[in-house]
């Protein structure tokens, strides 16, 4: 293998002493430190790097930057395989593995390339026209077919093993782009003492200065870049983010940027992320994103070896690579023809300069002379020879005469267009500039200014001057008026006459506008004929500009072809909208740390560690992880739940209820406040007592329920359901701050402060009496049902006991400061051992409450009223409260509303299913006969059969009636008997023993 045959002997910003090994499609190759994958492939003489999206046409490397539409490869292998990465932006690293995409069996011989033969049939709107009908074919035939044939690259198919993270940064001035204008802006603003962040997409600062033999302040531009970089590094409040692309502009001076921290190494070092997603908040921003060169559209303009002229200079001057042996230049501007000189200087033969402009240019002519090349003005490329790589071009000159040139490189340029994408993210509209023959930034996002080529100033001197002024101006706007130093100076290159040529008429072969989506001139013209005259419509119809490059090199040409096809002025045709992100962003970068168990924070109850030791199975309840059940070794889930329930009914159980929302409500108006927010009355609750409370929304529907205890005259302790804790707190704060700011009431969440356990069952008192310090008497006389009070445990640790029961058994809740929660549950278990205590989880909790007919989440579903749930009598008529009047609306008090009932299967062996519809016994299963549904079900170990709760029209009047519980989803159809909701101890005697 000849090593890097196209590498120049000298020059460029690569380190020839450091050889980097890599592979492409399994072929072992070498490059140098400082290379991109694209430059290394070119150095090895590889021009064919992929197959196109729709037609599988051979494609090469068009650009040298992030705008690349063609050279997309799969990078890495295994779990780190990443499709559609641009070879032009991949920094070469030791061991890099890349492979071409969209080809089978090989890049050079691709079976699917026959689709080119059908090209006339898969033009614009093909999908819309062909796959319309029959609709049934979509899922089975069309979609799988399209998916197989189309699409570039393959995802890894397994989880990304690397870590990604987010970060926030703040600055006075954000400079976007580290080329001439950006460096000048960063210097001018950072010198004033302003906090500056400079983001550069490349791994090296300098932008086009790395690719042009320019001089600044009388010395080589590269030296100036190094000096600028060193000065910026030395300033304490200036931060340079290399390999960082600013992807989007958002409100309030917020910018999103992706830093590719470790994409340039084989594996991220331990503890380091692969990428970092920055959210940058900047008072001012200077956009110095440079410009993107526009190709000229002609037949077979996508052949490997056809490259933008500016990119050719990058490969020659920055990477020391000759992208070909014999070149032809085809352009409509003098800047591009400079390429001939650069090529000639490194020994690449230049056959001809094809100037598309009608009038000859002296500068271009001079360049041709220096390069020893022919110069043809008013000429165009009519035909390209070579399929997998350019072999020559046929040129039609001004007189119509055809001439042929052999070449393996065609450098093309239709001039430069400002990279203004970020200026449009907040709805700014670009403006057509006749002088530039391109779109220029229009209205800018607040706080942003634009400098240099991004503003249409293509001369180096102008870039430096504009950058300096924009940087100094941005700093001054932030209050930094100190010295911004002297602006650097350079000459402006003469661009010559601008008379843009967009496309070559009557050239042979398919002429591509959008390389990545394979959209050609004929597609645009067809769309225009079919009435798609607006770029936004053209885009949707032809997919022009919808690929991962968002049409960076194609949109303008597309608009020009459209303008011509519809006989309009290009400046009046308009453009499509650029949206974030500027370049493709990995989903992992958006996710950052929030993957797997960290998808969102998990809240762990104080007993979590202990429960884990017991072998508990956990369930997510909102953000909390709660113990679902505590299986003994080898025990089935249902058996565990049955055992836990039975243990509570016959002995005693303990359950962590710390996750319930807990709110301290204090102040001299606390009682009055609670009277307003609860449907029932709390101001008359005695100190040392607790009460069940029901809260309504403004519209009369139930918001939440829970118990509230009065700990002192001016201190209530409210509990909410776990699910509604945050909502209730917000509701209370709204009421206090907006509705009744005159009340003396203060609220604070103490959910986290208290570890709280329910101890329930006939032996609950025995257990708890053993837990509290001896001074406290928990006898029925001293501490009756619904009593509450301060106690101490473990020798003086403050605790609170509430005699509340959700299970229907003798029960207490005991709370201690959360750091004692772990010790307390262990103490309870130890004290309860003599009484046969066992922990119970949320599943058993649910069974216990269903046996008792207590409504919970499935019944408090945001659609039920107090009447529906059997709480109608709790609605106070003696006071005003939120929801009072709306709850009295006739439609909310209609007895035909589905209301709470108990249900049990007529055949006790039958299983009930939540969600089943309740129908009259012999009625047909139709929506018209639907009278309600089963909301909660449980197997009751106490009764030995399934039972359920449901919401049934006229429910309370129908106890004893037989209905159908019809479940079409799971095929259930069970006769059920309507019962009062409470199945166990309806008199509540066990609560009060």
């Amino acid at each position, binding site marked *: 293998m000849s090593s890097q045959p196209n590498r120049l002997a000298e020059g460029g910003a690569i380190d020839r002493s450091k050889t980097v090994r890599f592979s492409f499609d399994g072929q072992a190759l070498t490059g140098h430190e400082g290379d991109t994958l694209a430059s290394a492939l070119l150095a090895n003489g590889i021009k064919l790097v992929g197959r196109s999206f729709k037609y599988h046409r051979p494609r090469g490397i068009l650009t040298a930057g992030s705008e690349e539409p063609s050279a997309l490869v799969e990078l890495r292998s295994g779990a780190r395989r990443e499709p559609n990465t641009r070879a032009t932006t991949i920094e070469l690293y030791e061991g890099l593995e890349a492979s071409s995409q969209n080809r089978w069996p090989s890049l050079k011989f691709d079976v699917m390339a026959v689709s080119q033969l059908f090209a006339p049939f898969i033009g614009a709107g093909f999908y819309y026209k062909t796959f319309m009908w029959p609709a049934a074919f979509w899922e089975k035939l069309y979609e799988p077919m399209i998916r197989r044939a189309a699409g570039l690259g393959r995802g890894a198919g397994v989880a990304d093993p690397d870590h990604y993270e987010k970060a926030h940064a703040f600055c006075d001035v954000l400079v976007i782009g580290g080329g001439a204008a950006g460096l000048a802006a960063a210097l001018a603003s950072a010198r004033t003492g302003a906090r500056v962040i400079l983001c550069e997409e490349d791994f090296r600062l300098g932008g086009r200065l790395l690719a042009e033999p320019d001089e600044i302040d009388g010395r080589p531009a590269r030296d100036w870049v190094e000096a600028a970089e060193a000065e910026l590094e030395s300033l304490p409040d200036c931060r340079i983010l290399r390999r960082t692309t600013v992807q989007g502009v958002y409100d309030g001076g917020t910018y999103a940027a992706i830093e590719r921290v470790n994409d340039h190494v084989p594996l991220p070092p331990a503890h380091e992320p692969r990428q970092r997603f920055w959210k940058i908040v900047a008072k001012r921003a200077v956009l110095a994103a440079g410009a993107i060169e526009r190709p000229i559209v002609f037949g077979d303009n996508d052949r490997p070896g056809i490259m933008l002229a500016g990119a050719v200079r990058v490969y020659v001057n920055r990477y020391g690579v000759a992208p070909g042996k014999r070149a032809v230049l085809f352009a409509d501007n003098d800047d591009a023809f400079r390429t001939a000189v650069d090529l000639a200087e490194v020994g690449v033969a230049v056959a001809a300069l094809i100037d598309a402009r009608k009038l000859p240019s002296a500068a271009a002519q001079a360049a041709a002379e220096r390069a020893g090349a022919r110069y043809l003005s008013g000429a165009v490329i009519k035909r390209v020879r070579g399929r997998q790589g350019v072999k020559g071009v046929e040129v039609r000159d001004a007189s119509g005469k055809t001439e042929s040139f052999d070449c393996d490189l065609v450098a093309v340029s239709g001039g430069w267009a400002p990279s203004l994408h970020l200026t449009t993210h907040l709805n700014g509209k670009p403006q057509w500039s006749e002088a530039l023959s391109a779109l220029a930034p229009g209205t800018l996002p607040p706080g942003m200014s634009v400098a240099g080529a991004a503003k249409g100033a293509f001369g180096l001197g102008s870039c430096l001057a504009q950058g300096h002024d924009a940087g100094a101006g941005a700093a001054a706007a932030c209050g930094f008026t100190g010295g911004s130093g002297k602006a650097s100076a350079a000459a402006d290159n003469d661009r010559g006459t601008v008379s843009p040529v967009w496309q070559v008429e009557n050239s042979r072969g398919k002429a591509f506008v959008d390389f990545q989506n394979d959209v050609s001139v004929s597609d645009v013209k067809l769309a225009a004929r079919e009435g798609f005259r607006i770029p936004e419509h053209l885009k949707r119809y032809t997919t022009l500009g919808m690929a991962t490059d968002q049409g960076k090199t194609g949109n303008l040409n597309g608009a020009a072809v459209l303008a011509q096809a519809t006989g309009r002025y290009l400046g009046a045709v308009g453009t499509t909208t650029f949206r974030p992100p500027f370049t493709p962003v990995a989903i992992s970068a958006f996710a950052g740390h929030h993957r797997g168990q960290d998808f969102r924070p998990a809240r762990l109850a104080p007993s979590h560690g202990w429960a884990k030791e017991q072998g508990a199975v956990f369930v997510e309840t909102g953000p909390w992880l709660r113990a679902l059940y505590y299986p003994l070794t080898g025990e089935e889930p249902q058996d565990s739940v049955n055992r836990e329930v039975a243990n509570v009914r016959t002995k005693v159980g303990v359950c962590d209820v710390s996750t319930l929302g807990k709110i301290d409500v204090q102040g001299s108006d606390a009682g009055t406040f609670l009277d307003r927010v609860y449907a029932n009355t709390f101001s008359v609750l005695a100190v040392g007592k607790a009460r069940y409370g029901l809260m309504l929304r403004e519209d009369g529907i139930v918001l939440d329920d829970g118990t509230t205890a009065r700990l002192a005259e001016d201190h209530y302790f409210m509990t909410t359901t776990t699910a509604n804790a945050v909502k209730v707190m917000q509701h209370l704060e709204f009421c206090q701050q907006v509705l009744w700011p005159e009340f003396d009431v203060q609220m604070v969440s103490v959910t*986290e402060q208290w570890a709280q356990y329910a101890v329930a069952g006939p032996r609950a008192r025995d257990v708890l009496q053993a837990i509290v310090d001896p001074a406290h008497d928990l006898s029925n006389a001293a501490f009756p049902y619904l009593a509450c009070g301060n106690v101490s445990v473990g020798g003086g640790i403050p605790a609170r006991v509430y005699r509340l029961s959700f299970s229907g058994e003798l029960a207490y809740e005991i709370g201690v*400061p959360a750091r004692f929660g772990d010790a307390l549950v262990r103490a309870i278990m130890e004290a309860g051992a003599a009484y046969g205590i066992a922990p119970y989880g949320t599943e058993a909790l649910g069974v216990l409450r269903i046996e008792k007919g207590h409504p919970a989440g499935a019944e408090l579903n945001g659609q039920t009223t107090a009447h529906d749930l059997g709480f109608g009598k709790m609605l106070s008529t003696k006071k005003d409260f939120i929801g009072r009047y709306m709850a009295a609306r006739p439609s909310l008090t209609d007895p035909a509303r589905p209301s709470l009932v108990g249900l049990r299967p007529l055949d006790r062996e039958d299983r009930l299913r939540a969600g089943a519809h309740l129908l009259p016994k012999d009625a047909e299963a139709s929506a018209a006969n639907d009278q309600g549904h089963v909301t909660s079900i449980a197997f009751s170990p106490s009764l030995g059969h399934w039972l359920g709760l449901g919401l049934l029209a006229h429910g309370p009047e129908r106890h004893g009636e037989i209905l159908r519980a019809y479940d079409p989803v799971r095929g259930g159809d069970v006769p059920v008997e309507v019962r009062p909701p409470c199945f166990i101890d309806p008199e509540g005697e066990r609560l009060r023993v």
Partner: protein
Amino acid sequence: MSDRPLHPRSALAGIAVPGRYGAPGSEPGVTIAERVGLGLATVAARKEHGEALKQAVANVYGIDLPEGSRIVQGPRVSFVGYGPGQWLAVSEALDGEALACDLLQNLKGLASISDQSGGRTVLRIGGPRARDVLAKGLPIDLDPRAFPLGSAATSTISLMGVQIWQTDDTRSYDIALFRSVSASFWRWLTASAGEYGYEVVGAGGA
């Protein structure tokens, strides 16, 4: 049974184990210490008693209650403002419930006091890279120009609610978070601090 003492347990017990972690190097970029046993309590001024409360705090604790998001450090008790008329009292001297008891006694009728000593995990995050670590989760600017000594803020880190304040030297910050998310927070913190190398100082909880 009741005479058997109950031992407190940090939410980070067994998780925050003292030692040197992450990228190796001479000096760790970040130091992390849990402030265990702190007294913590919320103090909310009673209606129309704001001035009297300020006076009482000045008399009893020797400091002026801060206005806005600031921390004022007293000899025994510090106060972190987190809302209009709302403060988080922090104390080493009055540990655990003792702080809330003391405040209740001294500010009776002037403020509503709720003990929070069990409900928060407080971490002190310091070292030369402390700000870089916090920037990976905290959406506020900690530059001394924006967050000078004595500043406090209520914000979020990686979707978790936090209170943050800066106390003594310019490189370390106290972060109070809800106890229940301590393990999740620790995973975020250590994943974020790893690249700088970090040291967990002191016992993570007894």
